[in-house]
Structures are given as structure tokens and as C-alpha cells.
């Protein structure tokens, strides 16, 4: 556990979840080696443009308007 100051009940919930995640093999300690995406250059360029052009953000804004639980604010 880090030096975070949590309420006793929250700290207990975190420890239980951490133990269960560890037992299930869902906690990772290894750094990430980012693999090359299994797509062609054209396919990657399409997605990169979707992200960088603001189109992705506009779609998410619309989706968030339909479902506030998806909002970051």
C-alpha cells in the first residue's frame, strides 16, 4: 500500500480487491512493451486521423450527451 491516507473501511476494501486481483493474476508488475499494431499503414493512418483530427472527441461528446455516466466531468 502506498502512503495514501484512506478511511479504514476504504483501505480494507482496497486491500481485499488487491488480494483478489493478485490471486486472479490481474495485477501486473511488468512495464509495457508496446507491440506494433497488426494493421496496415493505411488502416493505422485512418485511426490516427480519427484521433488527432478531433473526430473521436466529437463522437464521444455526442455519446456523453446521451449517457452522462460516460462523462469525464
Amino acid at each position, binding site marked *: *500500500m*502506498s*502512503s*495514501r*491516507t*484512506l*478511511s479504514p*473501511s*476504504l483501505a480494507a*476494501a*482496497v486491500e*481485499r*480487491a*488487491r488480494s*483478489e*486481483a493478485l490471486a*486472479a493474476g*490481474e*495485477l*501486473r*508488475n*511488468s*512495464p*509495457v*512493451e*508496446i*507491440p*506494433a*499494431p*497488426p*494493421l*496496415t499503414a*493505411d*488502416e*493505422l493512418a*485512418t*485511426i*490516427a*486521423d*480519427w*484521433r488527432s*483530427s*478531433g*473526430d*473521436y*472527441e*466529437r*463522437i*464521444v461528446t455526442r*455519446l456523453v450527451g446521451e449517457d*452522462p*455516466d*460516460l*462523462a*469525464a*466531468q
Partner: protein
Amino acid sequence: MSLVVDDHLLLDLLLGSPSSWLRAASEQSAVYTTGSWYYRVALAANRGSGVGAISRRISTLDTEPQRRVLDWLGQLPDWIGLLGPRLLVPVMAGLDTRAQPNLLAAEALAVALVTDSEIAVATNSPLLRGCALDLGIGYRVDSR
């Protein structure tokens, strides 16, 4: 310390084009995202119809590349960590913060606590930042 990344940074990592900070950070730690952020990416790919949509952008591709792009966006690779609600909901329900986080924020905070991570986002969220501060969770905006 690990990282919990939002949907934008997740896309950058999947594309193999993270910022220099995110690349360096991910080379030193495990990377997680949340179900909500992953859901945003997959939902946007599948429901993004109309002006500016990916469906319009990939319409120039043949059928098979279109399918591969949508499949790829909809399937989170194993090297990105993802914890499920059975583990997270008890933590989400017990978060003790001044402002009430919504579902997306609560999930991100819970993943950060359970995995001892810092939260990294592309766009600042005052709500998430404030809650992270209350809980002693690191918070970084990586806008490239």
C-alpha cells in the same frame, strides 16, 4: 507505480504513437485502463455514424480492412490491464471524496487505488482531479 490511462491515451498507446512522456512512463510500469474508457472507444467506433465518423473515414478502405479496424478497436489487447466490477465496485462504493464522482470517475479512482497507479488523461477533468487529490492519487494531464 503503474498508470491508469483514459480513452485518448489508450488510443495513442494502441496506435503505437504515445507522447514521449507516455512512452517513457509505460516502459517503466504496467498500464491499465477502465471499462468505461474502453467502452467509450469501442462505442465510438461502432456508433460513430454521421459527419466526422470513423465509418465515413474507413469507407475508403475495402471491406476486409474496415472489419479489421473495427475488430481491432473493439478488442483490448492483453498488455493493457483491465479490472472487472466484481473487484472494483466495493472500492467505488466506499470512495471518500468531497465531490461525488460519477461512474466513469469512480471506476478510474478505484483502479488507481487497487493497482497503486497514477491516473493519466489527455484532457483535464476537474472532478476527477479533485477526487484524485482527496485520495492521494497522482494525476497527470498528457496533452502531448
